[in-house]
């Protein structure tokens, strides 16, 4: 029973309203990449306590726990919310999403490499499509538009190289 997706204008209205509630209550937008940075910092710190003096990640570890932050709690919420919605709509199943007939091993290799690039980039851009593009643009930031147009532009220019991976999408 695969329920249909919502109308995008309607989803966007609700998404924008939740984003505004985040501005109104927490005084910040909704992010994601920061939580991954904090999880990485915490894991590294558990293995090597000297990591607390790292030039970049040291700021996360000042309190001794990089995970004690609003964005980490919010990201846990995003996972719960996504699960609830998918469960109601009958959309929870293990799969490797890719273009028609694309080999799984190559698909997973590109998912991994893409993850490395995306994570590295978010540290330069102080956020991702959520925390920088959406949350910044909703608050009139020029930087958010620089990031968004640059990211979408690069993705479009490089898309011919990945057309087999995404055949039929």
């Amino acid at each position, binding site marked *: 029973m695969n329920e249909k997706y919502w109308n*995008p204008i309607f989803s966007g209205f609700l998404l*924008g309203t939740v984003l505004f509630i985040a501005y109104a209550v927490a005084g910040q937008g909704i992010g994601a990449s920061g939580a991954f940075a904090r999880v990485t910092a915490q894991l590294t710190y558990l293995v090597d306590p000297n990591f607390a003096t790292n030039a970049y990640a040291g700021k996360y570890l000042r309190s001794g726990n990089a995970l004690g932050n609003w964005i980490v709690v919010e990201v846990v919420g995003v996972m719960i919310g996504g699960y*609830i919605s998918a469960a109601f*709509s009958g959309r929870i199943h293990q799969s490797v999403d890719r273009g028609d007939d694309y080999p799984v091993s190559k698909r997973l290799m590109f998912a991994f490499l893409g993850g490395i690039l*995306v994570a590295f980039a978010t*540290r330069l851009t102080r956020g*991702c499509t959520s925390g920088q593009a959406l949350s910044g643009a909703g608050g009139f930031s020029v930087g958010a538009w*620089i990031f968004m147009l640059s990211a979408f532009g*690069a993705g479009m220019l490089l898309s011919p190289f990945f057309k087999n991976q*995404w055949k039929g999408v």
Partner: protein
Amino acid sequence: MDWILPLFTTGQIANNLNLFIGLFIGIGFGFILEKAGFGTSRHIASVFYFSKLVVTQTMISAIVTAATWVVVFSYFGWMDFSHVFIPITYVWPYLFGGMVFGAGMIMSGWCPGTVLVGVSTGKIDAFVFVAGMLVGMFTYFQTYQYFEAFANSGNLGRFTIDKLVGGNMFTSSYLVTVILAIGLGVFMNVMKNIIDKKRVKGV
């Protein structure tokens, strides 16, 4: 009036309550992302081929909606937007980092927000992307000294549209945001029509 938004950064609610509400803000965000179709890498990738417009249309609608609420609440004095954190604009790292981000997105079909939904709904490619992200974060932490100067170049501070073109939040900032959003939507639509015609011809 004895209250003003935002509540937390003006000291009107305690940290624990802010975190508690943050959990529900996250749940709402994740629920809507999934319902909007952001839970599969196929939909994210489709943006770059102009085959489906769902992702960009949702983003455009969300940006305009949030900006509208901000303008309305600020106009009536219910919100002091200077207490809302907006990322600082760093021109060069955003331009270059944006390109690297876009390359990673077309490669993987994920971004850090949508992948959370992918993970919680069982997508294997989402788990692998997350593993890659941990490696990418670690690499940045360990090589930061080489990027520090570049990462902080082109710092314009809290740089909103009115600071670039004049006017204020209610005039230029709001207007330009709406124009950019609609412009992006029209561009996507035009490109989709052109490419759909090619697809029919089998080019």
